[in-house]
């Protein structure tokens, strides 16, 4: 329990606020009445069975998915169809995908400098300096001039994290970042994410890695069938789950 939780509790400095958010795919009600506030510097882990809507939830934060009812406010900016606002939000929110989505026709360095040059309009030299700094922080500076296809899965995901960080985002979203990795590479990516968390980055992480959740999360959110079922700090969540469905889910994945 820390200061960030108290901050979130007080509702001040909220990084992300979901209020009465609903989403439908055609006639399928995929997000039902989501109410969630994420404070600045808070680390949220979202877990749940597949099809529960957790990926859809975080993709609503940078408008990769559109909600149909309710409001999503990110860093004080409400997300609507207004393109300017969407671009504004996307500049401040970084995202790491399950299958990395690195650009295969560019080197790792070019992947990282692309957005700073074209969106933040940085001079090339400054962008490259920033990229190198972040690539060394995730410990793949020596791969800077290689192409994504030449890196291992773990290296590619760390490169993807560095690419997102090059935009100096205030919030980082992780959509099952380790689900596509071989077991021996999961740790290096989780370590990188843990370091990021310890530096105070606001994070929402969708993952099945419960060890990570216990160690790093401020709160754990359990979603099932489109609705938020239970939210709590890690210890009470894992040790004393209160809702029936939470207990069922935990019994299935913690064996």
């Amino acid at each position, binding site marked *: 329990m820390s200061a960030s939780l108290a901050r979130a509790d007080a509702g001040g400095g909220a990084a992300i606020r979901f209020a009465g958010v609903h989403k439908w795919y*055609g006639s399928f009600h995929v997000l039902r009445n989501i109410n969630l506030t994420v404070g600045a510097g808070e680390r949220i882990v979202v877990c749940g069975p597949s099809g529960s809507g957790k990926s859809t939830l975080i993709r609503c934060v940078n408008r990769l998915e559109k909600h149909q009812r309710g409001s999503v406010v990110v860093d004080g900016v409400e997300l609507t169809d207004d393109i300017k606002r969407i671009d504004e939000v996307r500049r401040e929110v970084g995202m790491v995908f399950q299958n990395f989505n690195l650009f295969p026709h560019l080197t790792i360095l070019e992947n990282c400098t692309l957005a700073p040059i074209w969106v933040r309009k940085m001079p090339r030299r400054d962008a490259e300096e920033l990229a190198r700094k972040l690539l060394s922080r995730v410990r793949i500076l020596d791969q800077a001039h290689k192409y994504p296809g030449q890196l291992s899965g773990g290296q590619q995901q760390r490169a993807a994290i560095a690419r997102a960080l090059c935009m100096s985002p205030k919030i980082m979203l992780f959509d099952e970042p380790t689900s596509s990795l071989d077991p021996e590479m999961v740790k290096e990516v989780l370590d990188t994410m843990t370091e990021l968390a310890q530096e105070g980055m606001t994070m929402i992480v969708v993952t099945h890695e419960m060890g990570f959740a216990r160690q790093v999360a401020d709160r754990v959110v359990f979603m099932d069938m489109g609705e*938020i079922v239970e939210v709590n700090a890690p210890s009470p969540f894992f040790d004393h789950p209160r809702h029936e469905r939470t207990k069922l889910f935990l019994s299935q994945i913690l064996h």
Partner: protein
Amino acid sequence: MDSLAYVREAPEAEDAAPMLSSGVLAWARANLFSSIGSSLVTIGCIALIAYWLPQLVAWATTRAIWSATNGALCRQHQDGACWAFVIAKWDYLRFGSYPVAERWRVDLVEAVGALLIGWLLWTNAPRRAWGALLFFIAYPILALVLLRGSSLLGLPIVDTLLWGGIFVSLLTAVVGIVFSLPLGVLLALGRRSPLPVVRMASVLFIEFVRGVPFITILFMANNLAPLFLPEAWAPDRLLRPLAGIVIFSAAYMAEEIRGGLQSLGKGQYEGALALGLNYPLMTALVILPQALTLVIPGIVNNFIGLFMDTTLVSVVGITDFLQAMNNAIKDPIWAGPTIMVTGYVFAGIFYFCFCFGMARYSAHVERILAKGRK
């Protein structure tokens, strides 16, 4: 609900989607009018359809002449198609100048062929190996005897000069596929052979045939075959372009099959070798059955292309369906400005139905194969 710890008390009721997110209106908004540009395009397209479609439909149906014995009626009504012409010429379009009394032979050959092809292409058919045997070995002999005639069996000989129309188009395409498939398999295997001479020979053959236009292959077969063969063997005028078609199709078939062989992966070869199978056994029992099944969609596509390419045989004097249509159009009894357009449109519809139908089948097989190969 917005606090630190939260436990759900009652499940959230499922709600109906707001009107604009589903249903016809939502669809229209997203797909037809999503932006100003898109709306303008939609309006433009609708205007075009409203103008042209009724005209087209009327030309083909309400204003068309459906029955007549000569071109007079069609000359009078020039704003509609002259389907009576097609109906009158239908037998010629189907058989060319094949003697009327013997046309049952053509029908028989076509029926048997359709049956065998259906058997082979139906993905769940039993004992398809038997079907393949019948189709590739017994059927060609049967077809040859029936179509050409044989004094032994009391069937009058019909010279290939008289053959024409749809059955010739089908014949050339089917013969092309039937013979080019085994040749293509040999070439594909040869191209992947570790023996340099074999590989070189295959590569040279394939790249040579694929690098020149089909017409030159037909010319080559037609003009050079009589020169390179001894005088006594003078090959039949239909046989020469058929040989050209087989050579041409085999080269493209070989590339398709090679793709299938490559996508099998080393694992299949290694598994077979580890069991002690030698090269011929491995190829026949393990590799080819899988590779050929994989490339069935590609083979069907080749067949479609070949069927369209058979239109070129008229350049060496064979009367295929298109040439038959050309001849029919020249009939002075039916002369008129709408005859040519009607004839070509009908030919277009014929080829379209045939080829599009085969393409749908190929897509269907691809879907089934993809499911099995997950």
